[in-house]
């Protein structure tokens, strides 16, 4: 019975979302607002049950270790609360945890990007030329494509010089390489959205077939 009600709600919401095909209408907007509201509510429930409640219960159970592990983060979290009201006398207190979050987050992101993204990708574009001929050609094409694509974004060289003309030609080729890459992205996105549409239509069809029986 519960599953039947859940399925019915899912069918109604799916039809409300698909009603966008005839234009913007209240049904679609209700489904949209419901999705946002439910997502926020779910995030709050998850945060309460998975973060706040365990932290408070551990803090109240005592122990110096628990205080440093849960008390300091809770205190920093409480400092964010003055931002709730419109009175700004104490809102500067929220700057302390926010500065901590942004500082640590930025450091983490920069460090991670250098070690986890930039260096591996640079190394990957300069692979050694060994293995079978197809692999060697692939490495050359990869390196050339990288240079040509990067030259698309090289705007400051005058084009009346021989070097400038060379850069202009390579930028043109790089531009088309970018277009081809965007075409792949679009085709992949199309696959994703058609899969979603097919899955929802299949769900609707199965529900109606079961309802007819």
């Amino acid at each position, binding site marked *: 019975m519960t599953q039947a009600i859940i399925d019915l709600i899912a069918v109604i919401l799916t039809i409300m979302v698909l009603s966008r095909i*005839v234009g913007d209408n209240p049904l679609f907007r209700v489904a949209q607002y419901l999705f946002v509201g439910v*997502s926020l509510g*779910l995030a709050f429930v*998850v945060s309460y049950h998975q973060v706040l409640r365990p932290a408070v219960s*551990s803090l109240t159970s005592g122990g110096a270790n628990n205080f440093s592990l849960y008390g300091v983060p809770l205190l920093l979290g409480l400092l964010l609360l003055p931002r709730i009201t419109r009175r700004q006398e104490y809102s500067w207190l929220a700057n302390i945890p926010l500065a901590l979050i942004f500082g640590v987050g930025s450091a983490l992101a920069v460090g991670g990007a250098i070690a986890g993204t930039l260096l591996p990708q640079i190394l990957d574009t300069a692979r050694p030329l060994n293995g079978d001929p197809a692999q060697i050609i692939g490495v050359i094409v990869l390196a050339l494509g990288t240079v040509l694509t990067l030259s698309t974004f090289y705007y400051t060289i005058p084009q009346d010089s021989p070097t400038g003309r060379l850069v202009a030609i390579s930028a043109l080729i790089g531009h088309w390489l970018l277009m081809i890459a965007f075409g792949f992205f679009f085709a992949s996105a*199309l696959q994703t959205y058609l*899969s979603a*549409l097919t899955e929802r239509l299949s769900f609707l069809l199965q529900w109606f077939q079961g309802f007819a029986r």
Partner: protein
Amino acid sequence: MWLRSDTAAATDDANQLPDWLRTSQPTSPAAAAPPPTEPSGPAATGTGEELPPWLRDEAGQPLPTAGAPGDVHLPEWLRGAVTEPPTSPVSEQRRHRPPTPAEPVSPAQLDWFGDAETTETQGRSAGESEFFGGAELPAWLRKAESEPAAEINPADARSLDWLTRLGAIEEESMSAATPTPRLPPRAQPTRSAAQREALTLLERLAAEPFPQATPEPAPAPASLWQRIGLERLLYLLLLVILLVALAVPALTDNLQLETPPEAPGASDLAAQINRLSENDVVMIGYEWDARRISELRPLKEAVLDQLIQKKVKLVLVSTDPQGTLLLFDLRDDLVRANYRTHGEDYILLGYKPGGELALRSLAQDFQGMLRSDFQGNDASEGSLASDVQTGQPRLTSLNDLSMILVLADDSADVQSWMEQVHRSAPQVPLGFLLPAETAPIVQPYLKQQLIYHLAGKQGALAYQQLRSTDAASAALIARDVGQQRLSILIFIGLFVLGAIAVGVAQATTRRRAAP
């Protein structure tokens, strides 16, 4: 001469004053007046003694030209105009008014001096005009022409109107405060028709800066075809054809090719998972939400179900709130597969807030992370995380894991796991289950060593094909492949149809518009 007669008349008037007034009266106005500092007229040069040295000859006698006016040697047309006596009403009034005893008359204070100079200047300029009248002067010598009136926008017109009114008030107050003789009204300049029109426009704009909105003509009623629109029609066509294809699977039989579906990375991932056994521990990251359920659920069913079949030990974690909810669904699958709870066969860490921060702490202190599962219980003492017989921990870092598998719906998730987790444990195989949309974006990560991936529904079907052993599951896979191919073909067909229709419509419009 006229000044002397005035002075004489004043002296006569002074003789008629009573005695009590005569005592304070100076003996003569000339005695009361301060002496002039320098000679101010031809009368001063009448005697040779008063001449400066540069106007005398070597014998000290005056030069023959000393007494003559300055322009006596000039040609007739260069001489100045004849100085006329002052004619302004104020000067006339002063001339006939006797000087009062309290204000002695001084030559420096006389108005006729300034008036005569003005008259002289006017005469000189008149002479110049006559002289240059016949000549065509260069532009810089001509009289400045009046500038055409600049157009004023409504906002300036309002401010101009305000300034005009303010100026009128100021003028009135000033004229009331200082009674001055009223000059005759200045003759109005003659304005051209264009200037008068501009003035009228300016006044109208100042009065009504914003014109009244004229009602737009009612649009022509749209036809049925225009109300529906080509785009909407194509969407409806796509929907109907897909519904029919799903309702009648036989329609897609021709699209179910003989060759099995293929996907890059599927065979490598299958080989890696086939190496795992029930003694291995795999960490699974749930970083997806319900929006990508159409692709990630088949991927999850294809890959995780195999792990569950092999009874591989699992550590489940998520930094996404919706992913956490979906993790609880996975827990139901584990319970159905007889997985033991309380950290024996799997550990559900649940939601770890902070995104990259949580992943970093997971990489740095994995054992500490195990101390609090989704209910706050210490999972590090379970049989999965520690050896029951020796009591030694089995899971101290990420390197103790056999594999890490991440279900990610976004390229940012892949980047975070690569940057924070994989660089801490580069020897641990890392697999990504992705939507087809995300796979091309994260290709640079997927090329690295010990990185596996499977993308989209096509990848899920390819993986299922590798696992399937019975004919029933093979038929289901073939049907799904046929439906997916049909949907792509229909979309491409409608896309081309729409492009042709738009091109034809534009060509027709251009042909009609052409003369």
